[in-house]
Each structure stands twice: as C-alpha cells, then as structure tokens.
C-alpha cells in the first residue's frame, strides 16, 4: 500500500473520535459554556465502553455505556457551572482531572487487555476502487459520525432547537426574556456534549485501537477543544478540521515509518499551532470576531 493510500484509508477512522468529541464540544460552546474537561470525559467513556465490551462482547451496549459515562461526567461539571455559577475554566479542568483519574481507576484491572473491533463495511464496487477504495471501506460508526455532523449543521441552521441554542449562547439575557429556559438548554447541551465525548472515547478504545491502556486518549480531547476554535464554531468547518487533523495523525505514523526528515513532534504540534493562528485571524478583526465566535462563551448566567 502506498503512503497516500495508507493515509486515505486511515484518515476517517482516526478522525472519528476527534469528530465526535469536537461536535459535542461545539454544541456546548454554542450554548455559551466552555467545558475544558473533554479529555477526561473521553477517557471515562473509553474505559467504561471497554469494560462493557470486554464482558459482554456487545459493541452497541459498549457505545451506550460510553455515552452514558461521558454524560454522567458532564453533569458533574454542570452542577457547579449552572447551579452555582462557578468559573467554567476551573470547573472544566477539575472535571478533566477527575474523569481522567476515574478512567484509570476503573480501567486498572483491564490494563493491556484487548477486545474484538467491529468489522468494516465493504461497499460493492466502491470498495474495490483503486486508491479511494480503502477510504470508502469504513465501519458503521465512521459513517454515523459523519451523518451526525450533517444533522447538526442542519439543526443549527434550520431547526427551532438549533436557533434556541444559538440564542442562549449569544445573548442569554435576551433569550431568557423571551421565555427560553437558558439553564435547561445549557444543561441539555452539556449532557449531549458529554455523551458525544464518551462516544468518541468508546470508539477509540473499542474500535480504533481495541485495547485499554491508561492515557490512551493521548490528547485527543484537547485536539477536540482546539478543533471547535479552529472551525470557528461552524459545524462544517469543525468536521473538515477533524478530518484534516485525523489525516495529520496518520501522517505522523507514515513519517515515523518512512524516516522523512520532519520530526513527528512537529506534526503532532501542528493542530495546536494551526488553532493559535486561526485565533489570531478571527480575533484581530473585531467585526469578524463577533460574526464567528459565541458572544457569551464562558460567562455564567443567573436570573
């Protein structure tokens, strides 16, 4: 397999945990809440999904368990942030440390064990295409995640729920004044974001690399946080960014294997570097900043 084919074939699967977690964080941030605990929620989702998969062999059950674990962790964050108006940055970091620690605690008896991954779906004709065939042969979760991205883009653009979430994020006081339940919507978004982060972790631990090791999320949660900014809070751009960063992580492997004279660390740092550049580009122009970011992000809301 040529390096190009290898990258094309691996990109979507590598992007899926990033995509799921970033879509979740996108919804949370669109509602005006910054949750920096994504790394921890992913790790907890991964650990719980792995344990369930290991004992039952059922992947559907494992994914449900991973999502519930992520959601439960997110609710730990929702209590201080929504009910007690606590600093979101501090509460998010606390959640990240707590959930990461819990994942290691629960996962300890399972260290280095493996489970069976789910099979990739062969699409007649398309999977046999030269070069592109590998890219089109993916497991169902990959396609479901992409469908989720499309669904979310549509929801933000065209549904009442999407508009209410955006209103709550842009101007919670105004949204409250017209009767939108600000805190309830934020709580739902935080729970949804946690569920998606948990799913992303579940995919990483039971499908992408079907084994458990402490620290296996390896910074994917931070990349997801970066992705939301990189994609300037637009669903389509976030999804494209996830695929791009997925390709980069496969590229890292190719670079290591072929000994090209780029340090693999440079590629690993690229998502973060790109995010800093994007931040400079969107923030330096105040009009563009207002257009592209969420106005009340990080601000607590109280009646």
């Amino acid at each position, binding site marked *: 397999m040529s390096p190009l084919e290898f990258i094309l074939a691996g990109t979507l699967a590598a992007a899926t945990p990033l995509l799921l977690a970033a879509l979740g964080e996108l919804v949370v941030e669109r509602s005006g809440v*910054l949750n*920096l605990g994504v790394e*921890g929620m992913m790790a907890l989702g991964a650990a719980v999904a792995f344990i369930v998969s290991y004992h039952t062999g059922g992947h559907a059950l494992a994914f449900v368990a991973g999502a519930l674990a992520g959601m439960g962790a997110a609710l*730990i*964050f929702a*209590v*201080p942030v929504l009910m*007690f*108006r*606590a*600093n979101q*940055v*501090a*509460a998010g*970091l*606390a*959640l*990240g*440390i*707590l*959930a*990461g*620690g*819990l*994942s*290691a*605690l*629960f996962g*300890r008896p399972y260290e280095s064990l493996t489970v069976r991954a789910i099979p990739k779906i062969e699409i007649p004709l398309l999977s046999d295409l030269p070069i592109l065939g590998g890219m089109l042969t993916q497991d169902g979760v990959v396609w479901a995640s992409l469908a989720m991205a499309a669904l979310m883009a549509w929801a933000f653009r065209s549904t009442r729920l999407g508009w209410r979430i955006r209103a709550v994020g842009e101007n919670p006081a105004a949204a409250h004044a017209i009767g939108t339940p600000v805190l309830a919507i934020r709580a739902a978004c935080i729970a949804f974001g946690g569920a998606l982060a948990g799913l992303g972790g579940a995919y990483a631990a039971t499908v992408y690399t079907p084994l458990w090791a*402490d620290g296996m999320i390896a*910074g994917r949660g*931070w990349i997801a*946080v*970066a992705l939301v*900014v990189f994609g300037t809070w637009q669903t389509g751009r976030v999804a494209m960014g996830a695929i791009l960063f997925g390709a980069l992580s496969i590229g890292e492997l190719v670079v290591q294997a072929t000994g090209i004279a780029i*340090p693999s*660390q*440079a590629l*690993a*740092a690229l998502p*973060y*570097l790109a*995010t*800093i550049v994007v*931040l*400079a580009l969107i*923030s*330096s122009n*105040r009009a563009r*900043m207002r257009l592209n970011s969420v106005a009340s992000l*990080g601000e607590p809301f*109280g*009646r």
Partner: protein
Amino acid sequence: MQFDLIRRDRASISMALLAPLLALLATGLVSWAIFAAIGTPAGLALWTMAASPFTNWYDFSEVLLKMAPLLLIAQGLAIGFRARVFNIGAEGQLILGAIFASALPVWFPGATSPLLWPAMMVAGMAGGAFWAGIAAFWRTRLNANEILVTLMLSLIAVQVLNWLLLGPWKDPAGFNFPQTAMFQAQALLPGLLPGTRVNIALLFASVASVAAYILMQRGVAGYRLVVTGTAPRAAGYAGFSAARGVWLSLLISGAAAGLAGAAEVAGPLGQLQRSVSQGYGFAAIIVAYLGGLHPLGIVVSSLVMSALYIGGDNAAVFADLPQAAVRVVQGLLLTFYLIAATLVRYRIVRARVAPA
C-alpha cells in the same frame, strides 16, 4: 426543589474560611465511596492519604519538596486570575522554563562556575515568561482569548520537549531513554534541610509568597491590576492600561512557572526528563482556587495538595490504592470547592414561584 442565588452585600468571611473545609469533607466522603466501590480498603486508604505525610519526618520533607513548585506556580497564577487573566498554560511555561534552564548544562557540560545554577534559574524564568508572553501578545495585539492560547501553547511545549529529548538533547549514554545526561554538581540547587531532598526552591516559593502578599494585599500596583481585570472601564478612566494588566499577569505567572520548572531539573531530577512536570501546571490551578486566590490561603492549599501526592504514594503502597486515585481526589476537591465558594458571595434562598 427550585432555589435562587442572591448576591450578598459583602463577601462572607466565615463562609470563605469554611468553604475549603466543606470541600475537604465532601471530597473525603465521596472518595471513600469510590475507593470502597473499586474494592480497596477505603478507610485505610483515606487515612493513609490524609495522615501519613505528617507522621514522619522523611515523608513530610517530601511534602515540602513537592510544595515548592506548586506554591510558586499557584502564587503567580492567582495574581492573574484575580485580574481575570486566565493563564491555564502554566504546564507549558514550566516545561519551557525547564528547557531553558537545562540548555546551560546541556550545552556546557564542563562548566563548573558557582554561578551556573543561578544562571539556570534566570534562564528558566525567562523561558516561562517568553512562553506566557506569546499569549500576552496574542491577547493584547490580536485580541485572542488567552485561555485557549495558553492551553494550546502548553500542548506545543510538550511536543518541543519530546523532540529535544528524543533528538538533539538525548543522553548518548542513556540506553535510549528520552532524557538528558545527568547535570554536573554546579547545576544543582543547594539543599535547604540536611538529610532530605528539600532544596532552596522552597525559599524561592516563600519569597514569591511574601512578594505576592505585598503586591496583592498591600500595594497599589496589585490593586490597579485587579481593577484592570474586574472593571476595565473604570481602570481606563483612571489611566491604568488593561493591556499592561494582561502583560503583567502573564509575565509574572509565566516567570513563576518557568522558575518552578528550572528548580525541578536543577533539584530533585538533576536532568531534563519527559515527566518533568507531573501535571504541576494544572494542579497549581487547583491550588490557586482552593487557596481562595489569596497569598496566605495558597500557602495552606499548596501544603494540602502536596501532602495529597505523598499520601497518595503511601496509600498505593500500604492500601493498594491506584496512583490515579490522587487525580480523582484533586478533581473532586476543586469541584466541591467551586460549589462551596459560591456561597461566599451568594446566599441560597428558596425560589418563589414565578408568576405565570
């Protein structure tokens, strides 16, 4: 049950002192339940974690050793947090400080000057301030959110460290371990307490605490700094520049974290390693909040937090508690504290039923 938070006329001092205790109590209870659930002797584990660091001199000296970087970083961060400049990238600034400091013994392994370690400390502060300064530039010139920039810079710093340790700075005689050669004696900090590993980094942290106290609780400069963050318009009318507040907050916290990194490589480690930080940059955020962002409170909270690390190590040995338990306790502690701290500024009242 519905309830409302009503802002108090003035912050409750008794609640401010009670909040960390309430958080500790709740953390203890929930930790006990979690430890019991995973099948460890929970009572023994908790007791070992909480008490063992204070029962013998050696363990307590290790607590003091850990306390130095946490105290140093947290004092710096708290200054920024009070000015509403959220530097959450102390982890990266610590790593850059460690790298800058290590450059001297790595490049001049034959240097025997007694000024070597002081030069390393200065280099470390410069490294941390440089890394934080990037975020200050991004915030003041490009209007970019410092929370995200400092976070991204931290993640980049980890990659820079990995690259150095796997590439140009790797000890050729080190069996391929990602670490530099051990530094020469002149690159190491003098000890502070004979017979222990405690070094003068604890002195740096103490001086920083006194300086933070004078700056934030006594001086005009600290007051101005807080005003630029909490009431930027008022500060503008009074002629204090918000940009200056951002620069000052980030440079101080970055230099403090950089110094902590330099003191780690010149102290207990004696070389630059991948695990130079062990999460001190994030733990210091917990320390800063737990101490109520007050210089004296932070002294106490850094002691509690370092004891937690040593107690956790002991509980791993004596109660078979996984190392990760320390992270669980840290996370719970900050979460509960954030809840309890709200009661310092707010009263809880039952919500009246809103008219339909």
